[in-house]
């Protein structure tokens, strides 16, 4: 057991961080909002190996594990890198061109409600308003659909039928409101769908952890320089205790998220589904609460568009609605308590 980043993982993290700082430092964000998904840097990301990390070397991949993917995704989360990141990674082995970033793959999760799971497969059509919103739906080449009974591939080619949402919650995550999905082809079974959901949830946790880290850093830095009542607000106990709680949430989220990733790579060390669900619960809480507190600590500035905090809260809300909300993951953890794996 050695639960710390090894040298290669440190190097990977540093590489992704440098690229993110160069491409996505906050000062450039206004530009990115104009075009949140550009093929140019999508290919750069692929060149960094981000999408191909887990694909076997025989398939042109890097042959690493979920641990490395998580390390990279934390960095992407920290800098709010937009795009259907996790779908492109999940598709690396399934859809030619995804690993190299030439094909941009979006995704849609279509779980059947518990009471409709027994009757045979329902049509792959959006059932309510929320389910019909597809991230970057106007810019993706292929749409991957996860259903309880399998995985579908739908050709999108930037031409899915629908209307763009006028005011997406996250300015960096445009949404296409799709009324009817085109026919697709089945490319995987129920087991694959379940595996992709687990892996996607682990990557979501990593992105959320990045948000928790970044908002803590921003909040502390701001509090140290902002003065009120003749002293830095970082010297007020209320602010210090907010920050301390943010730190605790970040530490818990990091440990749980990396543990989940390691468990996916080596299922002998624990129950994969419990580890992933637990990580998602604490990473979600860390991102959400840290982003909220970051806004509060920024005060009036936190309520402005030109400061970073709101971008993080909005992205957090997108991720917290990706592959299930926190309460559903809590239920998963509780189910494992009732029937421990052994």
């Amino acid at each position, binding site marked *: 057991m050695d639960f710390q980043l090894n040298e290669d993982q440190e190097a990977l993290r540093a590489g992704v961080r440098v690229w993110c700082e160069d491409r996505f430092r906050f000062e450039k964000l206004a530009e990115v909002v104009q075009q949140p998904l550009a093929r140019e840097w999508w290919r750069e990301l692929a060149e960094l190996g981000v999408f191909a990390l887990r694909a076997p070397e025989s398939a042109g991949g890097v042959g690493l594990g979920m641990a490395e993917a998580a390390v990279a995704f934390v960095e992407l989360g920290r800098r709010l890198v937009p795009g259907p990141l996790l779908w492109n990674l999940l598709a690396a082995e399934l859809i030619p061109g995804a690993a190299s970033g030439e094909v941009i793959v979006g995704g849609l999760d279509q779980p059947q409600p518990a009471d409709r799971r027994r009757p045979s497969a329902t049509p792959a059509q959006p059932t309510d308003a929320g389910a019909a919103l597809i991230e970057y739906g106007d810019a993706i080449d292929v749409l991957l659909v996860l259903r309880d009974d399998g995985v579908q591939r739908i050709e999108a080619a930037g031409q899915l039928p629908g209307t763009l949402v006028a005011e997406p919650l996250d300015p960096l995550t445009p949404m296409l409101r799709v009324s009817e999905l085109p026919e697709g082809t089945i490319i995987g079974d129920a087991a694959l769908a379940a595996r992709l959901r687990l892996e996607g949830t682990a990557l979501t946790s990593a992105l959320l952890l990045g948000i928790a880290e970044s908002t803590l850093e921003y909040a502390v830095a701001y509090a140290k320089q902002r003065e009120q009542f003749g002293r830095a607000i970082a010297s007020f106990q209320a602010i210090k205790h907010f920050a301390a709680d943010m730190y605790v949430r970040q530490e818990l989220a990091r440990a749980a998220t990396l543990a989940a990733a390691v468990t996916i790579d080596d299922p002998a060390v624990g129950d994969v589904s419990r580890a992933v669900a637990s990580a998602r619960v604490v990473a979600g809480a860390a991102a959400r609460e840290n982003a909220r507190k970051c806004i509060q600590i920024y005060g009036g500035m*936190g309520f*402005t568009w030109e400061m970073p905090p709101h971008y993080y809260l909005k992205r957090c809300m997108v991720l917290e*609605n990706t592959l299930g909300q926190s309460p559903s993951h809590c239920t998963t953890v509780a189910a494992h308590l009732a029937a421990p794996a052994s």
Partner: protein
Amino acid sequence: MDLRYSDADEQFRSEFRRWLEAAVPAHGAPPARDDWDGRRAWDTGWQRKLFDAGYAGVNWPREYGGRGATLTEELVYYEEYARAKAPYVGMNFVGIRHGGPTLIAEGSEAQKQTHLPRILRGEEVWCQGFSEPVAGSDLAALSTRAVRDGDHYRVSGHKIWTSFAQQADFCELLVRTDPDAPKHRGISWLIMPMNLPGISVRPIDTLRGESDFAEMFCEDVRVPCENLVGPENDGWRITNVTLRFERGSAWAQDIFELQEYLVDLSALVAQRAPQDASLQSVLGQLAAEADALWALVKWQLGETAKTGVPGLGGSALKLAFTELTQRVYEFGARLLGRAALSRDATDDPSGWRSSDTFLNTLSFTIAAGSSQVQRNLIAERILGMPREPR
């Protein structure tokens, strides 16, 4: 203890309700958010209709065009206003809720006669020039200077969070008139006409992408001395009088609205997840707190009736309400699932644009004294706990 409205209150309720039932739909839909002229016309037009029907300035003196209502009529007014989903006070906010009440309490007869009827008729839009970049929670640290020069003050400084500055006709402005006095004792309260030379305004976009806020720069603006409200250097006391009113009954309407929202969320839950006991439990918890807030409004109103002045408890109401509102709308947004990832009205079946409204509530715990400031006030002024060392 008695919670029953009088017959007169109920009479007023049914009249006002009947009027709203016709007037609200007739006023139509609000203009686009970036149509500033349209928004001013819509907001002030509604204010004019209220005035013409005798419903403007519900608790303002009759002699200045108000209704002069009793405290309980005021409560009825807020209940019915929220129930009818009548237009938000919008651009009239500062004048109606803040500037006007300050003039009523502290203005000269001339100032009252000049401004109060015009505010009530929707003819004057006001903005607020209190905060400064380095004086936020520490409002008394403000440094905008006003130097007396004959019958004028010459004002220079930099204000921030000046909502609707571009549309406003007047600004309630806090300035430093005595730089040598202790910081709370050198402040004055001015009525500044917004059409004077030397004023420039830069919009600030909020996290909702709206530019309701602005920065305001004053360079040697000449404000007539007759626009001073109250005595020179007494502005801090005046500000606190007004803030105390702001923190009191002004929330009644919002609390009632929150209860309405919870009813609509409940319908959404019934439709989407009728079997989920955990959602019922959360809904009930939130509604119980909202009920308690509503009871607290009535309790504090009773106190005010007894003493004539709103008590310090307004801080408790503000703190509890703003924190609860965030939790309620966050819950609403969560309930929508992925639909909350759009702020378009069409994607929220509750009809409340929940995720966008949630974003808006984030300012509630910051503006008008952050939650931390309120906690300090409660601890020091109500519970008598000592100030921190400086």
